[in-house]
């Protein structure tokens, strides 16, 4: 039988607010355990939550970016359950009336095509703390630094049909939230985590199969692997005549498998009810409009602009627009050198390769966008040739010089375009290589073309790479042919 996979994602995005969603404690990552948990985060008797406006603004900007419905009123509710790292015995979340309603996120597939994934809603909630089991014998430690960190949970419709689509969706969310500046998107530090709902059904069947929810899948790669494993497990089960049970499963990246955590029967009754300590959140249109005015240019708009105004290829535009830092770097380079194609080639080519080798992000690049732009400008106005440019780039990377012009000046890499000076070098080369000159004279036209390369190389060498290769070619040919 042919099976179809159906996938929906719940992505938890940690919002980049400086303080927590309901308290003034810091959200910075990596502090000593329990040093960033105040009375409110500890759930001490008598404390009350106060909503962080910045978290609201960030959630709202996400909603506006995906063109979602923005309800006038949203309500915080309490999700009640006991867990040691949940200090109050409930999580303050949203349920019936979330801050962001229905919207759409477009994903880019590997074949270059696009697909719209519907967003069911996105809601604000507080994160829990962390239980630490490793460092304690016979006990568990609890770190409440993370408790109260604002999360935006983005819930998709079950619109994805493959692991690839799911990871493309996750990438699209990542791109969007980092573009919006509402999250650092750092998956290794848990800034983005996702729960995956997976089911399979016979191809052509309209009804969904029974789904399993895989909890806490924390990288693009794991999402694909977890889904691949889970789909195979469910298909095997069904083909053997078994049934998929609705349950929560955990992905184990070590074993590359998912394991049952709890079935539907064991599920909690969370007893949601509106939090009486927080008033309903009302967003008036002036506030919504203000947040809309703060939206940056979004990836899709940037991509269109790169293609239509800058004349970039779809491929170049996709890559350059997919990451806000890359796009900004590219645009700065372009602004200095005024050559989009050249800028695109260098950002994706030499710069990207060098960064990959060094394991650096574009934000950490030793060669700044201004510097690279300055270098490309000198290529464009033919001050230096491509070979010299690579040398200049290396020197800038090693931070030996302040800018390209300085390297060119000090190292004398300026392209020799003075034909008199060049003619002199060419004459020297012809004189120094009589054997090759004789061979050239005796060669066919076709062979001469190939042999010309030898002389060009010698001239470039003699000029320490500063000669203009096109000019060398033309002059050499002229002089050699004159000898024939």
């Amino acid at each position, binding site marked *: 039988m042919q099976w179809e996979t159906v996938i929906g994602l719940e992505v938890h995005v940690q919002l980049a607010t400086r303080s927590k969603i309901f308290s003034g404690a810091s959200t910075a990552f990596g502090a000593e355990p329990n040093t960033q948990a105040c009375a409110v985060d500890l759930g001490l008797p008598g404390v009350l939550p106060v909503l962080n406006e910045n978290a609201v603004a960030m959630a709202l900007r996400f909603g506006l970016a995906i063109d979602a419905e923005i309800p006038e009123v949203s309500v915080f509710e309490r999700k009640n359950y006991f867990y040691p790292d949940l200090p109050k015995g409930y999580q303050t979340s949203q349920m019936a009336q979330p801050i962001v309603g229905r919207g759409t996120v477009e994903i880019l597939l590997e074949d270059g095509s696009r697909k719209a994934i519907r967003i069911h809603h996105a809601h604000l909630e507080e994160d829990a703390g962390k239980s630490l089991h490793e460092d304690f014998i016979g006990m568990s430690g609890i770190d409440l630094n993370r408790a109260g960190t604002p999360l935006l949970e983005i819930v998709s419709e079950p619109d994805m049909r493959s692991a690839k689509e799911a990871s493309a969706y996750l990438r699209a969310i990542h791109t969007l939230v980092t573009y919006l500046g509402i999250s650092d998107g750092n998956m290794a530090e848990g800034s983005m985590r996702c729960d995956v709902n997976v089911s399979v059904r016979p191809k052509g069947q309209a009804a969904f199969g029974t789904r399993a929810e895989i909890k806490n899948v924390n990288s693009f790669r794991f999402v694909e692997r977890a889904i691949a494993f889970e789909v195979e497990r469910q298909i095997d089960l069904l083909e053997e005549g078994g049934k998929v049970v609705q349950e929560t499963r955990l992905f184990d990246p070590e074993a590359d498998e998912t394991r049952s955590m709890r079935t539907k029967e064991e599920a909690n009754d969370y007893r*949601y009810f509106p939090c009486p300590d927080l008033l309903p959140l009302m967003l008036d249109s002036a506030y919504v409009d203000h947040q809309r005015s703060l939206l940056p240019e979004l990836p899709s708009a940037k991509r269109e602009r790169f293609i239509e105004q800058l004349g970039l290829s779809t491929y170049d535009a996709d890559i350059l627009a997919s990451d806000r830092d890359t796009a900004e770097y590219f645009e700065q380079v372009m602004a200095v050198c005024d050559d989009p194609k050249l800028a695109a080639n260098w950002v994706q080519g030499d710069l990207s390769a060098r960064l990959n080798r060094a394991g650096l992000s574009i934000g950490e690049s030793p060669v700044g966008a201004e510097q690279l732009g300055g270098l490309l400008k000198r290529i464009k106005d033919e001050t230096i040739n491509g070979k010299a440019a690579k040398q200049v780039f290396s020197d800038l990377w090693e931070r030996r010089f302040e800018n390209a012009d300085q390297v060119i000046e000090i190292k004398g890499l300026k392209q020799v375009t003075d034909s008199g000076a060049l003619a002199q070098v060419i004459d020297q080369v012809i004189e120094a290589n009589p054997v090759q000159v004789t061979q050239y004279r005796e060669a066919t036209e076709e062979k001469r073309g190939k042999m010309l390369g030898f002389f060009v190389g010698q001239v470039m060498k003699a000029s320490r790479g500063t000669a203009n290769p096109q000019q060398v070619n033309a002059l050499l040919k002229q002089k050699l042919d004159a000898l024939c």
Partner: protein
Amino acid sequence: MLDLTFAEMARGLAAGEFKSVELVRGLLARIERLDPEINSFVTVTRDQALERAEAADAQRARGEAGVLAGMPLALKDIFCTEGVRTTAGSKMLGNFVAPYSATVVEKLAATGTVSLGKTNMDEFAMGSSNENSHFGPVKNPWDHSLVPGGSSGGSAAAVAAGLVPAAMGTDTGGSIRQPAAFCGITGLKPTYGRVSRYGIIAYASSLDQAGPMARSAEDCALLLNAIAGHDPRDSTSVSRVVPDYTRDLDAPLDGLKIGLPTEYFGDGLDPGVEAAVRDAVKVYESLGARVVEVSLPHTDLAIPTYYVIAPAEASSNLSRYDGVRFGHRCANPLDLEDLYKRSRAEGFGEEVKRRILIGTHTLSEGFFDAYYRKAQQVRRLIRQDFLDAFDKVDVLMGPAAPTPAFALGAQSDPVSMYLQDIYTIAINLAGIPGISVPAGFVGNRPVGLQILAPHFAEAHLLNVAHAFQKVTDWHQRRPVQD
């Protein structure tokens, strides 16, 4: 000197008739003598009190003292007080020393008042007799065989016994007004949102409100001045100008329109209480007020509505007492579940467990709509009853409780105990302010007249109460001690 009202005492301090240290020493001695029997205090903060009294006297000597500097009072043990054990009357918090102070406590401290300690209460403010305290029942100073009412029974008894001239209470369904009535003192529950709830151990968040309990309406006005106002740490506190509540105390009552809710004078009302309340209303008539009968048609739904909403909120509010971070933890837990179950089973008393169970049930899947959602709808109707009544009259008057104080152990059935709050509970559901003022006796048992006003009309409410106290002396009566 020790038997003055709070306001009189403040004037005495200002006039230099006595010093704060003298007051505090005198009252501490009284507490030492009388409270072993009355049991109104859970914790007496003797050393801090003397220290603060000395500081207040020094401040006054420098001419820098405010109206309340050096004024002694007590705090219900539900207000978190930095460095002081704060128990909420529960074994669960028997060892809990608060690391921070409630906004009310901070505000009172900022005016220079001197807290003598923390008063006894029904566990987590759940009760109407103060018999639900882990620290033992409180005795009514008028008759030690009677309850003082609850849940702020310790605060009411301490004031009635003359151990402090004023105490802070909280009122979720009548917990200030009913014990004030039972103990013959004046107790004000302000409008919901008028006083910050930050640092008050939560029972039912949408109903809890702190207020003063003292000798007179004037006392309450002085204390409300100190504690009212918006608090950025409490999102449900209201940003609204705080007037000087003492300013209009003496305004004439000409043309005052009083409504008597028909439903507050029906079956179950003790005839002696009714007689006292009707006599009090006559006093108002003699002061120029007009009296009309009004109806609050949803009155009979107030208790069932309250006992859905309050336990639902409580079941969630009390989840944090899990034995993990603070409070009681059972010995040698086998595993996490055992830790939760035994810590909570051992730490909470019967009534608290009962309300947690009720609340957990009413919020459960399949019951939520029938109970919680329905109760919220009824709550709006109850609120509307009051808004409609206040279209016709300025204030409402009636009994604060259906009976005077009953004997310790007399109400063994929870439902008959819940019925104690029949005249007070709807006020919390509606969010309006209410005050109980002494209005006579049934035998030696005090009766409270409850006066209700529209949202944020505390100044008027206090004016109406004060007018009564200017022409009666019920609030001056004291039980015989020793």
